[in-house]
């Protein structure tokens, strides 16, 4: 089996079969990660560029580790201290690095559409590691993998994404992916953090966290950007926590079986209380472990795909 695309730009329009293939392949790599020697020679001789225009800790380390465990050669670009900081254009930067012969590019950028743009200016396989508020497909894939691992399947589940949906790239990828896998998806947050006409994506909107907890199997809780949002989109962090923060009390009252996920980094005491972040309801660190396996799967499937 092979993926139907040479790139992973997002999950919009990606088929259930392709997602299934990635998740199943990830299961194999998940086993590799439990071995004493966690390395396989699959991508030996392949060169992968991690092109990070925006800061990232988790995603970047996760990709790097996935690349190394597949024995690929990796090079890293970060904007700070680079030629881009000296004013070189994105296109020139990419063309220059590509001239050093890279096979795959993992890209994170603050502008939506950059991964797609890369496919026009580069011959490499492109994997989107987050573009603006658009998509973050590998995050959604690892979220789905983690749900499947914990609950046995995705089809028929009710999943709610909670928080600042407007500024999230995780939300859209999760909506597209989960819907393709047969889950029903809702969003919950203050009205100012719900994107315009999100209902057009077949998503139900909640403004009441208690109701959202009560009516869903899974809550995928997003980070609130403290610096940016307080005072503009929400009156204060305190008010956010009081009305949308997830606490053990709320879970116990509404739905003790609910599964809590978070893509990190967590603001403890804002979107999640520490009790919840460390408690029995959550699988946050499993998500991180699974992230490496899922990214290995994506790298493997794109890196070894036979030429069409």
């Amino acid at each position, binding site marked *: 089996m092979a993926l139907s695309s040479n790139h992973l730009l997002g999950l919009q329009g990606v088929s259930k079969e392709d997602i299934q293939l990635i998740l199943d392949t990830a299961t194999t790599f998940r086993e590799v990660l439990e071995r004493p020697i966690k390395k396989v020679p699959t991508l030996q001789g392949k060169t992968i560029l991690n092109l990070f225009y925006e800061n990232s800790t988790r995603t970047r380390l996760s990709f790097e580790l996935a690349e190394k465990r597949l024995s690929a050669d990796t090079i890293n670009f970060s904007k700070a201290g680079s030629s881009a900081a000296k004013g070189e254009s994105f296109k020139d930067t990419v063309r220059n690095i590509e001239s050093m012969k890279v096979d795959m590019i993992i890209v994170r950028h603050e*502008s939506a559409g950059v991964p797609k743009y890369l496919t026009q200016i580069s011959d490499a396989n492109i994997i989107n590691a987050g573009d603006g508020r658009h998509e973050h497909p590998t995050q959604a894939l690892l979220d789905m993998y983690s749900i499947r691992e914990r609950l046995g399947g995705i089809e028929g589940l009710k999943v709610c994404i909670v928080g600042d949906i407007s500024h999230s790239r995780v939300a859209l990828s999760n909506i597209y992916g989960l819907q393709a896998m047969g889950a029903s998806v809702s969003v919950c947050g203050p009205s100012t953090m719900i994107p*315009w006409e999100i209902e057009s994506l077949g998503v139900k909107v909640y403004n009441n966290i208690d109701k959202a907890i009560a009516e869903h199997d899974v809550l995928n809780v997003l980070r609130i950007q403290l610096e940016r949002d307080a005072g503009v989109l929400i009156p204060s962090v305190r008010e956010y926590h009081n009305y949308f923060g997830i606490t053990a009390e709320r879970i116990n009252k509404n739905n003790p079986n609910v599964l809590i996920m978070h893509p990190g980094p967590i603001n403890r005491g804002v979107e999640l209380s520490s009790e919840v972040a460390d408690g029995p309801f959550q699988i946050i660190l499993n998500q991180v472990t699974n992230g490496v396996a899922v990214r290995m799967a994506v790298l493997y499937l794109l890196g070894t795909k036979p030429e069409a």
Partner: protein
Amino acid sequence: MQVLLKGVRVLNPEQKLDQKSDILIEDGIIKEIGLIETEKYQSAKVLELEDKICVPGLYDMHVHLREPGREDEETVVTGSNSAAAGGFTGVACMPNTNPTIDTAEVVRFIAEKSEKHLVEVNPIGAVTNRRKGESLAPMLELADAGVVGFSDDGDVVKTSALLRSALEYSQMIGAPIIEHCEDGSMAGGAMNESKISTQLGLPSIPTVAEDIIVIRGILLAEYTGGKFHVAHVSSKRSVELIREAKQRGVNVTAEVTPHHFTLSDENIKSFNTNLKMNPPLREQKDVEAMVEALQDGTIDCIASDHAPHAIEEKEMEFIYAPNGIIGLETQLGLALTELYHTGKLTLQQIVEKLSINPRKVLGLPVPKISEGEKANLTIIDPELEWEVDVNKFKSKSKNSPFNKKKLKGASVAVINKSKMFYNDEFINI
């Protein structure tokens, strides 16, 4: 020199003129209209114009010529060449140059550059010094130097108090205040706010940011009696506000760009930066509202908002690419293809919106097609089928989303200031 236009349909709604005639032009003046025997004028350059239409020279009231400041993107001369190639004998150029058109010196600089060109270039002066929204520009002095309207285009006039002053002060001149309608506190997005912006994850600009400034201008025009012109209207609600204001007798006019009556925000799914402009492409319902407003006269003018940008500026990440597309050389073709050949507007209406009304808004005389008048004419072949090729543009820039688009209808020749642009060359006549 003599030029004889043979068998052309002479169309000027302003003169209630629509007849097939020959026109003899001598030294830039219309000498004779009627049935003219070619033999009588052996030395004349004869243009056989069967099935072509001769109209008062087209006028684009909203272009950016980039000079002074960004001569790498466009100059007064290359922009004028682009205008002539697109069928225009006159343009009004916006003041967001560097330096800004906020002193008589800059106005004279532009006048000098355009003096010898076929295309008449009328500068628009800034409303406020350096378009900063802090203090009024010397509007009387600018008008004396040749400015025909005022705008902080690219930006809104920052405060209601300044806009009020401008609408009062400009009444001494009779020139309109042309407003780039966008509430500054909601500006800065990369596309229209809609379900598409939600899907694409791009920061968005809501239509209400336009509507608020449109209604502000209407209310202040109504209060002061000033002349208010809405640049590049794009929102359905704004059009409704203008329509209603016109019914009340408010002195308000409006223009729309060809891209806003042609393209919707669905196109942005390609992340093509040549689809990024401000105001952004709106939803299909807005596109349809533009056409209706053109039909019922709510929108007076079609104007290109010709905005040249260097290749390297547009070859950029979507959120960083600058706003704007060029339009002088596609405007007539788009108007004819999308509005005339679809039966939405008549040829008379097209001529009104591309020639007569923009001049009226700016208080410029409308060229007459009569004996003894200066020849200021555009000759149109409404049936000519052609494919847009940005590499053939006279403009210095190539940032058009219409490259490769097939259009029906184009300018064959333009005549003005004793010059003619015909067969891709300028000749003195």
